[in-house]
C-alpha cells in the first residue's frame, strides 16, 4: 500500500492569493495536514475566496465564498480554521498551534508579521525546530524589503521584459529586435515562487530529520525571478548585452515560431533545429524544392530570410488544424506543437492518458459540480500523491483544530464564535457582482465562450 510522503507533517498556511497557497495545496496532495488560516472578516479574507472567481456558470451562489474555481484549485485538500489575527487571543491560539506544527507558510509584507508579533523570531521561540517560508515581493532584507508586490508588476521588474517582446520593423522595413518589453503573464512570478518554496521546504525538512534544526526561508519573488535568467545576466557581465527581444525566433535555429492554423486564434509552434529537421519540414509541406532554394540553404540564410519563409510555412499551416500540423510534423521528426487553449488542455489526449486532471467532489451544499482539477507535474513510482479533497469550507475545522488539537473548552469556543473570531460565514461580506460573458468578451478578459461547455469536457 503506497503511503503519502508527508502524512505526518502539519502545515499552517497563513498565505493568500496564488504563490504560497499553491505550494500548500501541493503539500496537501503529498499527504500533509495543511490548515489554512482563514478569517470571517470579509475585508481581510483571501481574495481568491471573495473576488477572483470564476464562479459556476458565472453566477456566485449562496455560498459564494466557497465557490471560486481558482480558490478551489489553490486550496484543495486543506482544512480551514478562522482566526481574527487582530485580537491577542487569536494570536495566542496561533502560537499554541505553531507549537504542534512543523511548517508555517505566509506571504505578508515584513512589517505586518512583525506588527502581529508573528515573525520568524517570535514563532521560533514557540517551536525551536520550526520551518517557515516567508514569501514576499522583495524579501526580508535590503532597501526594498517593505515594498508590496503583485506578480503583474513584479515580472518586468525581475527582468522578464528584457528577454521577451515582439520584433519591430527596422529602418529597412525588415523585422528587427523589439524595443517594447512584454510579459509571460499568468502570474508567472507567483508560480516560480510556489515551485521554489516546495524545493526549499523539502531541503529544510530533510535537514530537520537529520539534525533537528529548523530553517527560515526568505523567499523574495524578485530574487527568485532573477535566478531563472542567469544566462541573460551573465551575457551582460561578460558581453555587455542587456536585452534580447526577438519574438518567437531563436538566436540560432530557423525557422522557429508560431504559425496560424484553422480556426479562431489557433496556432502551432514549429522549431527547426538542424538540417534534418529542415529537410523533413520541406518534405512534409509537400514542397521538397524549398530545400534547394538558396535563400533557405542553411540556418544563417534562413534567419536572414525568415519573413519570406514564415509566409510560405503559414500558407501551409493555415489550412490545417493546429493538431494536424503537430501530428504531421511530429511523424516526420520535426519539433512541433499546438498552442493549446485551456479548453484544449482539458481535453488533450496526453493529459487524459496520464490522468493529469483529478476529479474532486464538493459537498452538495457548496453548489459545485464534480470537476477535473490540475494535478502535479511529477509522478512517483511508490509514494502516493493525489488531490485529497475539495478546498475547505470556511472554518470547517474550527472544532477539530481548537477542540481536538488544542483542547479548548466548549464554553470558550462559544465566546470565540460570539465575537466572529471563529465562524462559517463572512462577516460583512456580499457576493461579488457578475459581469456577463458577452461583456467580458467585449472587454477582452475572455476571447469566447461555449454555452454547452459541459458536453465538450470529458466525463468526470
Amino acid at each position, binding site marked *: 500500500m503506497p503511503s503519502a510522503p508527508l502524512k505526518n507533517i502539519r502545515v499552517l498556511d497563513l498565505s493568500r492569493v496564488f504563490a504560497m497557497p499553491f505550494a500548500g495545496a501541493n503539500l496537501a496532495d503529498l499527504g500533509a495536514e495543511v490548515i489554512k488560516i482563514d478569517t470571517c472578516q470579509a475585508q481581510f479574507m483571501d481574495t481568491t475566496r471573495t473576488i477572483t472567481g470564476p464562479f459556476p456558470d458565472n453566477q456566485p451562489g449562496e455560498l459564494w465564498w466557497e465557490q471560486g474555481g481558482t480558490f478551489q484549485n489553490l486550496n484543495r485538500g486543506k482544512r480551514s480554521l478562522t482566526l481574527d489575527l487582530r485580537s491577542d487571543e487569536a494570536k495566542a491560539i496561533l502560537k499554541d498551534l505553531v507549537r504542534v506544527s512543523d511548517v508555517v507558510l505566509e506571504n505578508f509584507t515584513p512589517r505586518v508579521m512583525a506588527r502581529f508579533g508573528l515573525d520568524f523570531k517570535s514563532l521560533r521561540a514557540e517551536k525551536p525546530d520550526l520551518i517557515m517560508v516567508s514569501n514576499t515581493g522583495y524579501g526580508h532584507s535590503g532597501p526594498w524589503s517593505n515594498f508590496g508586490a503583485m506578480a503583474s508588476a513584479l515580472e518586468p521588474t525581475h527582468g522578464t521584459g528584457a528577454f521577451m517582446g515582439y520584433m519591430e520593423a527596422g529602418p529597412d522595413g525588415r523585422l528587427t529586435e523589439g524595443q517594447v518589453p512584454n510579459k509571460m503573464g499568468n502570474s508567472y512570478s507567483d508560480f516560480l515562487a*510556489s515551485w521554489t518554496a516546495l524545493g526549499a521546504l523539502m531541503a529544510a525538512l530533510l535537514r530537520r530529520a537529520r539534525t533537528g534544526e529548523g530553517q527560515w526561508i526568505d523567499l523574495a519573488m524578485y530574487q527568485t525571478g532573477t535566478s531563472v535568467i542567469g544566462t541573460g545576466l551573465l551575457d551582460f557581465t561578460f558581453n555587455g548585452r542587456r536585452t534580447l527581444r526577438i519574438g518567437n525566433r531563436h538566436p540560432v535555429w530557423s525557422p522557429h515560431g508560431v504559425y496560424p492554423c484553422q480556426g479562431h486564434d489557433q496556432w502551432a509552434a514549429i522549431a527547426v533545429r538542424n538540417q534534418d529537421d529542415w529537410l523533413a519540414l520541406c518534405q512534409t509541406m509537400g514542397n521538397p524544392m524549398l530545400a534547394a532554394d538558396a535563400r533557405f540553404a542553411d540556418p544563417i540564410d534562413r534567419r536572414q530570410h525568415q519573413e519570406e519563409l514564415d509566409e510560405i510555412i503559414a500558407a501551409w499551416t493555415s489550412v490545417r488544424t493546429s493538431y494536424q500540423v503537430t501530428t504531421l510534423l511530429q511523424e516526420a521528426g520535426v519539433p512541433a506543437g499546438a498552442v493549446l487553449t485551456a479548453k484544449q488542455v482539458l481535453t488533450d489526449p496526453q493529459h487524459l492518458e496520464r490522468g493529469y486532471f483529478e476529479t474532486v467532489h464538493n459537498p452538495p451544499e457548496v453548489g459545485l459540480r464534480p470537476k477535473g482539477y*490540475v494535478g502535479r507535474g511529477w509522478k512517483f513510482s511508490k509514494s502516493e500523491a493525489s488531490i485529497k479533497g475539495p478546498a475547505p469550507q470556511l472554518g470547517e475545522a474550527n472544532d477539530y483544530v481548537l477542540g481536538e488539537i488544542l483542547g479548548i473548552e466548549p464554553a470558550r469556543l462559544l465566546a470565540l464564535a460570539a465575537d466572529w473570531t471563529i465562524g462559517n460565514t463572512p462577516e460583512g461580506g456580499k457576493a461579488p457582482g457578475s459581469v456577463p460573458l458577452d461583456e467580458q468578451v467585449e472587454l477582452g478578459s475572455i476571447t469566447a465562450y461555449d454555452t454547452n461547455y459541459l458536453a465538450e469536457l470529458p466525463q468526470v
Partner: protein
Amino acid sequence: MPAGLLSGIRVLDLGSGISGPWCAKILADYGAEVIKVEHPGSGDDARRIGPFAADDPNPEKSLTFLYLNTNKKGITLDPSTPTGRKLLNQLLADADVLVENYPPAQSKELGLDYDTLSAINPQLVVTSITPFGQTGPYRDYQATDIVTYALSGLMYHSGDSDKEPLRNVLDQSFYVAGANAAAATQVALFARLTSGEGQYVDVSASECLGGHLVQPLPYYNYMGAIKGRRPVRGAGFDELMPARDGYVAPSVQGSQPWSTVAGLIGVPEMLDEKFSTGAGRIANGEELKELLIKGLSQWDRMPLFLASGEQRLVFGMAQDAGDLVNCPHLQARDFFVEVNHPVVGSAQYPGMAVRLPGETITDSQPAPLLGQHNSEVYGQQLGYSPENLVALRNNNVI
C-alpha cells in the same frame, strides 16, 4: 561554501541542456554533493548553446553551462561502453539520486531506466525530466522549449491579444521543470527516510507548466469561457507603459486609494472623481491612458518605483540585465556570488533563488571543465590507480 541543508546527499547529474542541470544545481546549492557525468569528447549540450563569454563559441565558455553547473564536480564516461558502464555502476552504488533528461527511448537504450538502476542500488532515487513524461501519446515527441510551452497551454496566454502568442523568456519551460524536479526528488528522499527504499520520479515539463493554469482552466470548466492574452485596450494600469528612460508598470492594486496613485503620477486631472473606481477607469479608459502617458513622461523608472514603494503602491519597472546586475537591492541581499573559473576568469554570478538566514554561503565553485574531476573521483573515490586512469583515457572511456 554552499548551504548545508542537503549535506551528505550524493547526486549524479546525467542531465544535459537546462532542465536536468538546473534541478541538480538547486540540489547542489542546498548542499548536496553533485557529480556531473558528461559524455567524453562532446559533453553537456549546453556547452554548445550560446551566448558564450566574449562571444567565443568554446565549450568551456557557454554562459548557460557556466551558470547551471556551479558547485558540481565534473567527470566523463560513456555509459554505452562496458568499462564506462562499470564506472557508472560503481558510482551508483554510493549515490542517493540520479537525475537525467534523455528522451524516454534513449534513457532505456542507455540502461538508465529505473529497473536497471534500482537493481544496482535499491535506495536510489531516479528522477527523469522530459517534455511530456514517460507515458502517453506524446512521450516520444520531439520537443524544444517553444513546443513544450505551446502544448502546456501556457503560451496561449503570453503576449498581446491582437498578435500571435509570444514565447517565454530564455527557455523558461525547462527552468520550471527543473525546479519542480528538485522539489519532487527531495520528496522521494523524504519518503525514503521511512520506507528505506528509493523510487522513480517521472517529471513532465508540460505538466509542470500546466499547473500555472489555475485561472484559465476553471474559467473553462466552471463557465465555458476561454481566457486569452492580455487585451490592448484599457487605461494602461498593470501594463508596461513608457516612462522617460524605459518602461514602467503602474498599478492600482493594493490597499491605497486612487488619490494616492493619481497624486504620485502627478497629473492633477487624474484626481477627477470619475477615475476613482475600477468601473470609472474602464469607462474612461482612453482619456485616462492619455493622462497617464503624460504623467509618466515626467518620470524616470527608478524614482517612480521607489516613490511608489514608499507610498505602499505596487508599481513595477522593466529592468534589463544591466539594471539587475547593478541592482542595489539584490546586492544588499548578497544575491550575487563571486565565481572564479579557470577559462573565463572571475565574475559575479546570480546566486540562490532563496535567502536562507543563518546559513553561511560564502562563494561558489565554478562549473567543471570537461572531465576536470576524473582523477579525483575515479582515483580517490573509486580507487583507480594512476596507470588505470591512463588506460581509461587512452581507450576513450573517460
